């Protein structure tokens, strides 16, 4: 492949729009062409910058009042379409003539209906609560990444990750190894920066910082104290490795997965697809590491 040809398709390469063979041709070209490597890095940076600039532009921010109103209107619209909740028993006249058995039947139905509605409402409340927990955790992860990895501005001095592992949570022990050296060489471009444990809004995180494609990436693990908050499964037995993009806050992408007792977040200003691909590459070794310890403890 020639440099000119590379430059023509470099953007499609960044957007994962090329077929495998062309990707290989590009990787081979990049191995020996430093100029094109620089150009690719510059284009990647421009793309990230454009994305952040557009997302963070003041005029592009949705008003919270509008968001709330929209949510309420749509919700009301959905429920507004349901039939009247009060059971219709013929005409008002005929209802007067109902016998005792019929009244008992109506009472039983109402009781059944009320029980059913309560179950639905409780399920819904539980769903909302889980969603809120995930959002809150993702928000904490982004704050941690921003303050701890990017700005290094912390209210409390962080402690060494291995020491925190011995004192607070054993999954922190050898976590760095699980993240950076046991993922089967998927991240040849990753460069370790540091590892520590920090407390944010009363929650302890194991925090690994590394550079990937020249961008700062945070890998955060926290004990959720309970099963399955991210995907809403109800039983620890249902825990399975599923990496998903879980949030997009302040221009940072958050991908997450969970084990029975832990939530794991990958935060960066890479694009959504790059951040997700990175999280998916790291997930198997980390999942095995954490679940191994959870089973043993």
């Amino acid at each position, binding site marked *: 492949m020639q440099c000119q040809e590379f430059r023509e398709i470099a953007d499609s390469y960044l957007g994962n729009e090329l077929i495998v063979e062309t990707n290989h041709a590009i990787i081979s070209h990049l191995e020996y062409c430093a100029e094109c490597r620089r150009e690719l890095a*510059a284009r990647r940076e421009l793309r990230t910058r454009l994305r952040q600039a*557009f*997302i963070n532009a003041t005029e592009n*921010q949705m008003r919270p009042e509008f968001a709330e109103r929209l949510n309420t209107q749509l919700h009301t619209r959905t429920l507004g379409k*349901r039939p009247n909740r009060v059971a219709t028993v013929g005409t008002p006249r005929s209802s007067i003539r109902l016998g005792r058995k019929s009244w008992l039947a*109506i009472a039983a139905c109402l009781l059944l209906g009320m029980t059913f509605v309560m179950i639905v409402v409780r399920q819904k409340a539980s769903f909302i609560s889980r969603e809120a927990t995930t959002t809150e955790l993702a928000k904490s992860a982004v704050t941690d990444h921003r303050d701890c990895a990017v700005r290094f501005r912390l209210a409390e001095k962080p402690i060494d990750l291995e020491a925190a592992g011995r004192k607070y949570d054993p999954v922190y022990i050898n976590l760095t190894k699980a993240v950076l050296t046991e993922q089967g060489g998927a991240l040849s471009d990753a460069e370790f920066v540091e590892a520590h444990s920090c407390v944010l809004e009363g929650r302890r995180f194991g925090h690994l910082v590394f550079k990937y494609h020249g961008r700062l990436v945070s890998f955060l693990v926290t004990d959720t104290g309970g099963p399955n908050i991210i995907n809403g499964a109800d039983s620890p037995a249902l825990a399975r490795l599923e990496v998903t993009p879980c949030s997009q806050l302040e221009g940072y992408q958050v991908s997450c997965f969970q084990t029975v007792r832990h939530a794991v977040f990958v935060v960066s200003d890479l694009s959504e697809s790059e951040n997700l691909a990175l999280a998916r590459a790291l997930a198997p070794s980390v999942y095995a590491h954490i679940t191994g310890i959870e089973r043993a403890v």
Partner: protein
Amino acid sequence: MFGSASTRESLVESETRWAGFEAEAMPHAPSLFRIAMWLTRNQPDAEDLVQETLTEGLSSFHRFAHGTNCRAWLISIMYHRQSKKKRASSRLHLVSDAEEFISETVAFEPPTPQNVTDEEVLHALEHLPRAFQEVVILADVEELSYKEIAAALDVPVGTVMSRISRGRKLLRAELATYAQAHGFGRAG
């Protein structure tokens, strides 16, 4: 019996539908608003467009193929609504000859400038013809695939590919020119 079974079914159905929509579609509202702002250029119109889009999305949510890109689906609805509103002006999908000509004139491509600021990137983007801005935003900001963009804009994939390529090229050229004139950035 007495209609209560169907009442319960409807209630459960509505709750389930809303829960699914809330979890799958509502998180894309900020993204829809950004695009609506770009399309309408003013906040009240953008809010109206987002509301119309999500309302239509909610009523046809049963047609959404789960596991596919919900944001792309909603953006498609938004473009459809907007193009219905603006059909008379034909502003959305047509690229004027002059714009095509501008894009063709970028023969030499300088190295991509580095260390540019948010303001400089947005400034450069603003200087692109709207048809090119549109595809660059959908591809590089909203991360839609070529196919998804083609579906949203109702144009062939080939057209999307060529517009994106030209749009990105124009953006880099615009930034390089701006960098030279204002002395920012560092050519790579």
